[in-house]
């Protein structure tokens, strides 16, 4: 391990680090928005739309991000739709992540105890009131573990952006390895860079998960 080589590469990695963080943030926020919209449409069984969103969720969840990105980046231009690599990356990540988030929220809504729903019904609540006061608050709390897992997953999925030459962390490390043939050093920096992002994220998420769980269910 040559520390000088590592030292020299740090400014380049710093830029890539920022890009990975930025792409992750946009991807996660976009995914949560798409996920909420999609799970609400599925919950209320909005005619036609709910079938469309169910199909979307299944398609996006059950295919690899890499192929989705290849489609956006290489196949769409043939149809006349040309987008920058970063745009493709973000759209692809939100397409995938939105489906995962939708599954997570739907799982939470379905996980709400039937006895809780009955108890709301026994108080005369209509479907909208039941959703607003019983199913959603408890369902979102129940979906926190899935939300946390999805956030961690999506950050790691940005590494696949390297296949369409977005200069995020993994792509940068591969470029450097290709140019200088120093795999140990650059892979080391790469792993450390992911650790610097992931460890705080994992810690914060598990803290939030406990807080929300306790706030909603008391254990």
């Amino acid at each position, binding site marked *: 391990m040559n520390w000088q080589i590592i030292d020299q590469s740090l400014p380049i990695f710093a830029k890539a680090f920022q890009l990975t963080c930025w792409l992750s943030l946009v991807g996660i926020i976009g995914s949560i928005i798409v996920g909420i919209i999609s799970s609400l449409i599925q919950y209320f069984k909005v005619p036609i739309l709910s079938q469309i969103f169910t199909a979307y969720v299944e398609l996006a969840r059950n295919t690899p991000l890499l192929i989705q990105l290849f489609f956006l980046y290489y196949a769409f231009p043939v149809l006349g739709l040309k987008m920058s690599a970063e745009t493709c990356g973000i759209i692809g990540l939100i397409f995938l992540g939105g489906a995962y988030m939708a599954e997570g929220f739907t799982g939470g809504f379905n996980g709400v105890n039937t006895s*809780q729903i009955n*108890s709301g019904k*026994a*108080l005369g*609540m*209509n479907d909208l009131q039941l959703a607003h006061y019983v199913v959603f608050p408890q369902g979102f709390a129940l979906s926190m573990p899935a939300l946390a897992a999805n956030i961690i997953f999506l950050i790691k999925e940005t590494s696949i952006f390297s296949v369409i030459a977005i200069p995020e962390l993994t792509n940068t490390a591969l470029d450097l390895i290709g140019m200088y043939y120093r795999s140990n050093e650059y892979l080391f920096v790469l792993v450390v860079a992911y650790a610097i992002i992931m460890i705080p994220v994992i810690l914060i998420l598990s803290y939030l998960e406990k807080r929300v769980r306790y706030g909603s269910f008391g254990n």
Partner: protein
Amino acid sequence: MAEEILKVEHLNQFYGDWQALHDINFTLNRGEVLTLLGPSGSGKSTLLRCLNGLENYKSGTIYFEGKKVDPTEKNWQNIRQKIGMVFQSYDLFPNLTVMENILLAPRKVQKRSEVDVKQEATKLLKRVGLEKYVNAYPRELSGGQKQRIAIVRALAMHPEIMLFDEVTASLDPEMVRGILKIMSDLSEKDHMTMIIVTHEMSFAAKIADQVLFLEDGKILEDTPGKEFFTKPKTKRAQEFLDSMNF
């Protein structure tokens, strides 16, 4: 003559091929207490849940306050505001405080004013001895306290009938007495119409104006309360009372 508040005619319920309720018929007068008795699995809870539409019964007719109930979900939502229910597992909303639990339905479903409902809730809480706990969360309460809050939550809707589904079954014995006392008071002082599923025989004997004895989803006996516990009409009911050491 007493006013008829609830009438059930030819009610049947199936789960798949299995018939859970067979041709249930009975009537209940305002201000009276009906107790459903019978071995576990006899259909008592199922019947109770049909009465506020939590179960979609297969066939039969329910009349509430003289009017035939149109069994659509929409219609049941209105009727449930007048039929309170308390469950075995309390089912307070864990994400809301005691006061929020009580206010939720009167405010949001019945659209009553916050000041009114709060005043009434405070009075009811005082009555069950829990006025100190207005801002507590359900997780901070014992089982018996939760169940008292659940009763208050149902009463705050001003129900015409209260349904109690084995409300003492998951409580420690020392908690049971307090809940039963509240229920007796409701009957004696407020003349609340109540339908009770319970295994507390001496309580049932004291409070019941009318007893339905069920087995395998059928009503074997529909008898005035005092009579059922002293000289039941059927052998099965006698055996049941013996088995409960009554």
